[in-house]
């Protein structure tokens, strides 16, 4: 690869390392796997960079995020564990609901903790749409491109993920 192509890669793709790390970290839920994923994804991106035709901004970010996602899934397959997956557990999730007992207000740190755990307990297909939508502010179409699932599925997963998070937080009775 000649040096101008490397410079172009560094200018177009590497500025999106933070979103890549964010997605990898929320998907793998631990630093070491997330580092493996980001490093592997960066190299895959480099290898396929000559085929990338999009703009350096949103399109490059979505393109890199798609590679990160694939790298995370192939890592979990390689480890032959469901490293990314966790079943949503009704028993556990109810513990996060502190209820409205008088004086039982959660302090801030506990609330954050409960929230993270609630997100971690979502399956990876739900976690990724939450991260892509709420943190990266991708459109449904972009999320569909990144995850390779139809826009309708993106929509229903996002809705379901939010219902679960809301329930886990006990923010308000859902479904009336």
């Amino acid at each position: 690869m000649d040096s101008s192509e490397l410079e172009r890669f560094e200018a177009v793709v590497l500025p999106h390392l933070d979103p890549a790390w964010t997605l990898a970290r929320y998907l793998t839920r631990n630093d070491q796997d997330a580092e493996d994923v980001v490093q592997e994804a960066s190299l895959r991106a480099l290898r396929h960079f000559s085929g990338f035709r999009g703009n350096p901004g949103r399109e490059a970010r979505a393109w890199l995020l798609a590679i990160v996602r694939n790298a995370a899934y192939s890592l979990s397959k390689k480890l032959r564990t469901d490293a990314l997956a966790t079943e949503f557990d009704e028993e556990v999730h109810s513990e996060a609901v502190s209820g409205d007992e008088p004086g039982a207000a959660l302090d801030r740190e506990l609330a954050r903790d409960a929230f993270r755990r609630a997100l971690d307990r979502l399956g990876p297909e739900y976690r990724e749409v939450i991260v892509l939508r709420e943190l990266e502010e991708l459109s449904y179409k972009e999320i569909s491109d990144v995850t390779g699932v139809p826009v309708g599925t993106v929509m229903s997963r996002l809705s379901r993920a939010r219902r679960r998070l809301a329930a886990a937080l006990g923010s308000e009775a859902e479904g009336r």
Partner: protein
Amino acid sequence: MTHAELERQLDAYLDGELAPEESRAVAGHLKACAACARLRASRIRLRDAIREELPGLQTPEGLRRRVRAAVRDAAALAPTPSRVAPGGAWRWLALAASLAAFGFGGWALGQRRAALETLTGQVLASHVRSLMPGHLTDVVSSDQHTVKPWFNGRLDFSPPVYDFAGRGFPLLGGRLDYLAGRPVAALVYRRREHLINLFLWPATATPLGGTTSTTRQGYHLVRWTASGYSYVLASDLNLSELTDFHHLLERGGSAAAAPR
């Protein structure tokens, strides 16, 4: 609009993903229905909570540096099309080199693993590096009687060297390498178009016990200890043939002498 319909569309509505007429219908229902309006308020609180509690993360500085370095290494090693010599053995060597560019990323990661993992990473890196043009052998010879003496004075041990050409694993040569903090012998064999590196060095006081095999990035590694030496095989050859080769090596000279 029913509650069920609204619930299905509420998220898309709040995300600004509904078509204008659908969006108007949802807005109309929300004005008229107190229960759905509460649901909407709860979704907005949830969104605020997500954005507050789940911040975007910053790449750790160490990782950022490693990514930049790995990308530069890989870019430097990736052959540009004009440099790939046409045809012959060079074609697959060039291919190996382009794969090697990838191996290094994994190798850098291997560094962080535990001691055993570190050795695995080093072996993999050495193997991958050896596949690059000009790195495979320091002494090119299919003659075990040329390769073995070559190590004299270069190593503080005299490695057993056998040619298994009669068994379909011809010896290509040897080179010095550096693993586990010491110089080691690397013997290079070929099986069809697959290269095999055999690393060996005197076993330390703590034997590894048994034979272990791992697969990394498409390369198989087989480790064992026998007759006072630690051995590691590395190749992209399939694990079954590599295991056969391992058994030949364990039999050593007697297997090498016997023609097919």
